């Protein structure tokens, strides 16, 4: 009896190297400018080639500016890194979606958008949010630069087999509550190391009811629970999303063959998981983080917790530190905390459905006077689609900046950063100290919640709207 993950693992074993350790074949290797230059340099130094350039796909996303694309990159160090990727892909024969390309975007947005991400694949990228692709029933994991070099040279990865964790999410979500709230609530429940050493398989009615884009949001943040990867078994929702995408199989026979294969990637009903957790979606309200890890999260109706109430010294110290950094006082209601900035973007929540939800919240309203708000679409294709639907106008008229695609203020490697002490409602995935800018204070939440916060100028329960 096997789990979905067991099946995908088994299908990629080139050779068992030792007990639990295998050499695995990589179907798709996604590459970006920040974690690849040292890997390409290593190949060059050793006189090695990229073994399968056609299974390698590169884009620029982390350090690129999201302003006017006709201007050169102002930051000379970022420009050098972007140039290095151009040089490397030319020399090694890898396809690149560069800054001028209509296909440019965040690596985890463009893989699915192209149909390059498919069920049952093993996908790697030098980026921890690679887990996003698990929404298609792929085993997708983030790796370090040494491993990037290894995959480039050998198309393989050596890995200890992680354990299986089932996160069964039953029930249905209340209106105004979404995929982001589900995953934040789960991380709050199991902790930021709750899934370390495991691959999470998300199962249950609440997961089945999600769209592909919502499933990507859930899988994306698996790493925030410590998981090696997150996966959802493919179903008709998955297949409908993939059909007709540029890199998906085409033609009756090829599509039918792919479909048959893809349908085999699921867990046996009696499959055993090493660990199981359950969550009732109906009990989940809109979530907001109050601290400096994604696990420091609460329902918007809650108050800033009192560290003194926490169980261990370790937790108490961490919470005290977090509240000091965040400038928050225990007992303060979360709803009503004033904000300075709003960031709608990132590989977690910058797909077209996210933008539609947020646009519906802000339509006909205006961003609060003290707030600076920006929308950074996940890819140039998402941006173009939003513009076809007139969403850019909705956002602009509401006072949002409408920008070009990239990781932007999720990681703050480009000019989009928070100033010290600035408080931000963000749809991204990490609220670590300094993540969005030194001294910046991040509250993670859903696109609907961030949009509502922009209008109100403070954290607010979107269900009251």
């Amino acid at each position, binding site marked *: 009896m096997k789990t979905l993950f067991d099946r995908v693992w088994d299908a990629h074993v080139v050779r068992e190297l030792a007990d639990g350790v295998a050499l695995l074949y990589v179907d798709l290797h996604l590459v970006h400018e920040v974690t690849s230059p040292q890997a390409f340099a290593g190949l060059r130094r050793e006189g090695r080639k990229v073994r399968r350039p056609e299974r390698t796909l590169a884009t620029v996303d982390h350090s690129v500016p999201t302003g006017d694309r006709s201007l050169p990159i102002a930051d000379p160090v970022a420009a050098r890194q972007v140039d290095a990727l151009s040089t490397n892909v030319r020399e090694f024969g890898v396809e690149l979606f560069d800054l001028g390309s209509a296909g440019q975007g965040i690596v985890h947005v463009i893989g699915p958008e192209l149909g390059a991400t498919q069920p049952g694949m093993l996908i790697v990228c030098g980026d921890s949010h690679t887990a996003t692709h698990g929404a298609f029933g792929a085993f997708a994991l983030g790796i370090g630069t040494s491993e990037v070099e290894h995959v480039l040279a050998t198309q393989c990865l050596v890995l200890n087999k992680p354990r299986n964790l089932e996160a069964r999410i039953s029930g249905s979500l209340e209106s105004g509550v979404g995929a982001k709230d589900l995953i934040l609530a789960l991380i709050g429940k199991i902790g930021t190391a709750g899934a370390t050493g495991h691959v999470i398989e998300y199962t249950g009615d609440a997961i089945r009811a999600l769209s592909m884009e919502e499933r990507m949001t859930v899988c994306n943040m698996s790493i925030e629970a410590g998981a090696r990867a997150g996966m959802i078994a493919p179903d008709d929702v998955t297949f409908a999303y993939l059909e007709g995408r540029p890199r998906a199989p085409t033609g009756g026979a090829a599509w039918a063959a792919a479909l048959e294969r893809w349908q085999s990637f699921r867990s046996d009903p009696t499959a055993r998981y090493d660990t199981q957790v359950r969550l009732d979606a109906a009990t989940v309200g809109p979530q907001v983080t109050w601290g400096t*890890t994604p696990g420091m999260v609460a329902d918007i109706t809650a108050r800033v917790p009192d560290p003194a109430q926490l169980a261990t010294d370790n937790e108490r110290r*961490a919470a005290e530190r977090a509240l000091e950094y965040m400038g928050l006082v225990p007992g303060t209601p979360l709803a009503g905390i004033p904000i300075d900035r709003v960031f709608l973007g990132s590989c977690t929540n910058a797909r077209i459905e996210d933008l539609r939800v947020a646009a519906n919240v802000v339509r006909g309203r205006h961003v609060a006077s003290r707030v600076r708000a920006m929308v950074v679409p996940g890819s140039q294709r998402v941006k173009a689609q939003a513009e076809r639907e007139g969403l850019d106008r909705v956002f602009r008229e509401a006072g949002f900046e409408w920008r070009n695609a990239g990781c932007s203020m999720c990681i703050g490697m480009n000019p989009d950063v928070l100033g010290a002490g600035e408080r931000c409602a963000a749809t991204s995935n990490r609220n670590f100290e300094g*993540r969005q800018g030194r001294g910046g204070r991040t509250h993670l939440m859903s696109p609907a919640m961030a949009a509502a916060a922009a209008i109100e100028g403070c954290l607010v329960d979107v269900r009251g709207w």
Partner: protein
Amino acid sequence: MVTPFVRHRGKAVALPRRDVDTDQIIPKQFLKGVERTGFGPSLFYDWRADPDFELNRPEAQGATILVTGPNFGCGSSREHAVWALAEYGFRAIVAPSFADIFLSNCYRNGLLPVQLPAADVETLLQRAASGSYEIAVDLERCVLSDDRGFSARFTADAYGRELLLHGLDEIGRTLLEEPSIAAYERSHT
């Protein structure tokens, strides 16, 4: 070439914090380089602005072993975090638990992660916080000890241990698997 890790004795410094993420170890603004070097001076950049930060204390100078809290190295996959720790001079990190990607990165850069039960780490944290304190780590025997009677066996990931003990060129090794890789490709296309 990776520096092999067989055994090491050195000064320990305590960083009693949990969930130390790789954004703290090496902040984003230092990730724009295209080399593997130059990260050491920027280790814990934001925290080091605080004169009381553990690594700034005079007794912490020259430390080669970092003793810290659970879930060390969580967050981003950036290998720059390991490069920064190694370049700063750390040879081993001792914690109750580590994030998965961080562990993989350690094995490939000669940095030994030692996982010990939380109570043992607490003992080491207290001893390290009290001043000049040395720890000896032996990866061949998988034993960590000090001069005050502490000694504990630790379990090391078998593959990671081999990479560390021999400072192996992992890619060179995998390239020897070419027949298996080619056979896999033939049977899957």
